[in-house]
């Protein structure tokens, strides 16, 4: 398994103002090996990757490539040394073609040299073939699926002759099938002698594909490049969170038959939904399952009034209503939405914890002159933040400085502070560590117990089975069926998949 030593990180430390991100961290990557880099949010994984690629510079310690100490001034130098990276965020120019994106750094020798599109697309198709990606290199990236974009990014990294490939949560937005394809590609690359570093929160995947593992906890090595063989899931989790994982096996909850809070009848929207029939009762957790592109987040936004209702009826607490904006949804009807895209839609990263947690209650707390005191916002949101165990040095801390898990807690907290009656939660655990994930699941249950109606959107099947009371399956902007959740994972995942495949066949 262990080929030549390609990349070695040795005793690296890094501090940011007020935060010690990495302390004495080491990791080694060998040719032909797929190495898992694990840790909870805020453990320092991303910082480590940024140090390897020259985006950050270590305060102390070294990064060695082929046994030679290197200090990259920027990611381009790292790429030239054979280190390719695919970040969590997409970095493609969506209006350019697949080929242009893959060859973006080598479109021509200088700014005015004419571009040989034939050569570019031939070269690009070589990498697409290697990745088993059957798309025309002349197609604009905007026409690809999320998974295909992911593969194009990997192709781009590989085309730079990368001997070391760093993948930061590459499967976060992929379906099981797409993940399988990606893994086949990664195995092939490893056989060809590439060293791969794989960052993921999904331990099942790690055990499936990785052979060695480095775990970070609070910016330190909980283990340094250890073979994965002989370890079990529990061992890894223990290293990540510093204690045993508590497996929450929830009993199915009794069905409520109170009148529904949200009721959609033959609902259609300008986003493209048709014949949507859906009810969510107070105290009920309804899961909305579907593959990426099924129209689930779009349905949430249609309920919030962000796209127009074009047919059918939307009833809130039994009354047919028209919701014209999220402001309407929140202030008139008590509907909140935790977005899957925390950075773009969920939070205002530039502003403080207080500014984010209080945004939903400003209107309520302001006096007739519109005057608003920090004190009253703190009184209102503080208890919720405290209950959710948000870890922040102060309410005035800029939220962009908090870890992903804490950010997510704040983006849920603001709706709890507003006392919403219906909370739509979209992919609550994307990029969230195990501890926070379990915590959020408990919280969702507690909210339901207190009578909040909950619509849970998730692509994470175990999460769905663990949390939802019943599961509504969506594809192609329609409802395809419903599955009563008895927490029997195998039966439910089969039932869900059959709903999706039936609709695909029809």
């Amino acid at each position: 398994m262990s080929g030549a030593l390609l990349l070695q990180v040795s005793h690296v430390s890094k501090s940011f103002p007020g935060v010690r991100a990495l302390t004495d961290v080491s990791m080694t990557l060998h040719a032909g090996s797929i190495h898992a880099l694990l840790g909870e949010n805020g453990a320092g994984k991303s910082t480590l990757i940024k140090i390897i690629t020259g985006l950050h510079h270590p305060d102390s310690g070294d990064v060695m490539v082929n046994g030679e100490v290197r200090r990259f001034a920027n990611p381009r130098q790292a790429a030239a040394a054979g280190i390719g990276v695919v970040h969590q965020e997409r970095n493609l120019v969506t209006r350019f073609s697949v080929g242009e994106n893959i060859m973006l750094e080598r479109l021509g020798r200088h700014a005015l040299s004419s571009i040989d599109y034939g050569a570019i697309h031939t070269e690009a198709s070589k990498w697409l073939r290697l990745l088993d990606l059957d798309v025309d290199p002349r197609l604009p990236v905007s026409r690809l699926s999320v998974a295909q974009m992911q593969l194009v990014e990997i192709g781009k990294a590989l085309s730079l002759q990368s001997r070391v490939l760093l993948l930061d949560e590459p499967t976060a937005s992929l379906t099981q099938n797409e993940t399988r394809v990606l893994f086949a590609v990664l195995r092939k690359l490893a056989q060809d002698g590439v060293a791969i570093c794989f960052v993921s929160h999904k331990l099942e995947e790690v055990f499936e594909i990785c052979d060695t593992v480095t775990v970070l906890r609070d910016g330190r090595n909980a283990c340094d490049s250890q073979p994965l063989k002989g370890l079990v899931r529990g061992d890894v989790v223990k290293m990540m969170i510093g204690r045993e994982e508590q497996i929450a096996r929830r009993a199915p909850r009794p069905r409520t038959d109170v009148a529904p809070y949200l009721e959609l009848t033959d609902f259609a929207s300008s986003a493209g939904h048709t014949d949507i029939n859906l009810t969510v009762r107070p105290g009920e957790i309804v899961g909305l399952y579907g593959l990426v592109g099924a129209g689930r987040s779009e349905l949430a936004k249609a309920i919030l009034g962000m796209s127009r209702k074009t047919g059918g009826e939307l009833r809130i607490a039994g009354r047919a209503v028209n919701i014209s904006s999220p402001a309407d949804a929140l202030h008139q009807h008590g509907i909140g939405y935790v977005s899957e895209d925390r950075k773009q839609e969920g939070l205002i990263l530039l502003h403080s914890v207080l500014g984010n947690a209080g945004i939903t209650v400003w209107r309520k707390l302001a006096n007739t002159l519109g005057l608003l005191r920090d004190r009253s916002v703190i009184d209102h949101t503080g208890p919720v933040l405290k209950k959710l165990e948000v870890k922040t040095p102060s309410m005035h801390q800029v939220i962009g400085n908090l870890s992903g898990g804490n950010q997510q807690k704040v983006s849920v907290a603001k709706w709890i502070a507003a006392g919403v009656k219906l909370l739509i939660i979209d992919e609550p655990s994307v990029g969230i560590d195990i501890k926070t994930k379990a915590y959020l699941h408990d919280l969702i249950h507690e909210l339901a117990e207190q009578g909040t109606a909950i619509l849970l959107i998730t692509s994470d099947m175990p999460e769905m089975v663990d949390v939802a009371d019943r599961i509504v399956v969506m594809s192609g902007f329609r409802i395809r069926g419903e599955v009563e959740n008895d927490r029997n994972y195998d039966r439910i995942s089969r039932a869900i998949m059959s709903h999706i495949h039936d609709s695909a066949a029809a």
Partner: protein
Amino acid sequence: MTDLKLIGGEDTAFLPDARPSLAQRLLFSNEFGLLLLIGLAIAIFSVSLPSFTSTFSLFTMGRQIGIDTMIGLAMMTVIVTGGLDLSVGAIGVCSAMFFGWMLQSAGLPVALAIPLAIAFGAGLGFINGVTIVRTGVHSFIITLASMSIFFGVMIFLSKAEAFNSLPPAVLGFGKLRIGTLVSSLLALSLATSVALSILYRFTSGGRRMLAAGANPRAAEISGVRTGRVFIACHMLAGGLAALAGLMVTARTGAAVPAMAGHLGQDWLLPAFLAPVLGGTLLSGGRVAVFGTLLGAALVNIITSGLLQMRVGEFWIQAFLGMLLLAAVLADRARHTLLRRKGMI
């Protein structure tokens, strides 16, 4: 702040209070840097120019600082949205001309004409705001167009003639001093700065403006009507621009179509210089109200110092251009720093 630590759990030690102490924040703030530069400029000019610290010189400087601050604040209220308003000058002149017409031709009392002129400016800002929000076109293009339209219509209606027999109270206000040094116009800008600080810091409306400016999508989903908020920002800018126009009118005692140059363009440099020097983030969502005041002060102290040293006006223009460029580079640096820290 210590009581708030309760929010953190046992692991808080891992994330020490990244918020520096009050003294540290003051020391590293943009405002402190500006104060140092202002002190330096005053020191240099008062040594080399004996007349620089004369009562008259300080009074006129303060008066101009007052006007430029108001112009800068007008632009700042739109920069908050992440946009800009090229028509501040045009709105200022149009409102001032409307003011002159109300007093001279319509014979309205000053006490009524002032609020009407400000409302008129806000109305022009409303036109800007609605057009920008409805079309989704960048404010640069919309306000470039409205600048020409407002100014053109004003020239047509006024036949490019000034209103120069205004009631003496107007000029009287412009000459008014508080104590021996402080111009009434500077005091007005100070009061406006205080009011804007209260708006952004202590009102839900102001916070909505900052939230919508920093991240419109997140704000919208959190129940902020961002469209309305942006329109309100443009109305505020229009009202403040009108106020600046009235201040210029009070200084000269007449409402003149050319008081801010062709299309009101002479205001653009001070309009951007003051807020950007002051530390208002060009990408929106963060203001520096008193920074704007200090920015305007620095610009005017240097300008009038150089003028008294008989440096040619065109050199001063070039110098101000370079100062703006330096301020924009500082803004970029701030932006990069914020992104590094993951705040954007």
